[in-house]
């Protein structure tokens, strides 16, 4: 009996490894798990984009005012341009307050971008040195965070949001944490 088992063992080991590889090798290594998921947002205060409207925003704005979305963007970021219509759509649905974090962008360019493509954000803040973004664990924009009423990060997406992702992931998560 034990002899039989030993002959089957390599096959078993192979199958286990095959399953691991089948899952592991099809994952995109560029997409990292977020260390801040289900953790409180970092403390920050962002000034407005220089010469632009509003007063910027801070971590205090993200607490106790329902679900918020923080979208990290820059005018030099091509995928940001691609996802912009979806951010606009999300903001128009008024299910969450959408904030724009302008990442290492020249104020002039950021404002031009907002003028050209439209400004869906309830408020935006300029992170000129990218320090607040680093506190959020941002490593490649666009990145989008969903933050619940208590200021806990509940979801993070790296990359441009497509309409499918908006409908199938973002909106359901916002709904879930709105209750």
């Amino acid at each position, binding site marked *: 009996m034990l002899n039989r088992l*030993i002959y089957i063992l390599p096959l078993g*080991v192979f199958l286990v490894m095959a399953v691991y590889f089948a899952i592991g090798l099809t994952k995109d*290594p*560029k997409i*990292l*798990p*977020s*260390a*801040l998921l289900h953790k409180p947002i970092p403390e920050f205060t962002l000034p407005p984009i220089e010469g632009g409207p509003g007063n910027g925003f801070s971590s205090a704005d993200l607490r106790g005012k329902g679900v918020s979305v923080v979208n990290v963007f820059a005018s030099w970021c091509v995928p940001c341009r691609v996802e912009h219509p979806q951010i606009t759509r999300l903001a128009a649905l008024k299910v969450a307050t959408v904030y724009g974090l302008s990442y*290492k962008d020249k104020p002039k360019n950021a404002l031009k971008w907002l003028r050209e493509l439209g400004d869906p954000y309830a408020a935006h803040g300029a992170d000129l*040195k*990218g*320090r607040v973004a*680093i*506190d*959020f*664990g941002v*490593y*490649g924009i666009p990145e989008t965070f969903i933050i619940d009423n208590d200021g806990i990060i509940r979801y993070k997406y790296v990359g441009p949001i497509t309409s499918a992702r908006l409908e199938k992931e973002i909106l359901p998560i916002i709904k879930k944490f709105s209750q």
Partner: protein
Amino acid sequence: MRMGIIALALALGLTGMTTSSVLFLSTAPAWAVNPDEVLSDPVLEARAREISKGLRCLVCQNQSIDDSDADLAKDLRIIVRERLTAGDSDAQVIDFVVSRYGDYVLLKPPFKLATLVLWLGPAAIAGTGLIAVVMFFRRRRSGAAQTGAAQQPAAVTTTTTPLSDEENRRIEEILKDGTP
């Protein structure tokens, strides 16, 4: 004989590996650290370099932030130096980055429950292989000893079982008569 060949192959492999790694290391990497980032205190700077070498650049994932020219790597290098200047210990600096980017930023993964398979897996597999090899040779030897024919080729003796009394009796009969 066969053992000798295996040992030779192993030795050759090891020399090859050492030579290639020496060659690889001897090509000095271009410094990504810009002169304006370097701290004036050489002790702090040395610590910053050492920490930076262990932190992964998240944009170009197989480089450390010390090697990478990416913007984010530069920002992180500056943060490492700022924290050190502010009096943080090496561990505090590393914690600062890990709390934002997770264990993934550590080029050397930490030893904990989630990484147990990673750290112990290779040793476990090699150990299992070693045990299997030892068991194989032991069984072969004990099999040979049982038949009392240790000098015989192993492949033959492992499958032989001692003759029963009945069989021995028949052999004697055959040898006597010359007919079955």
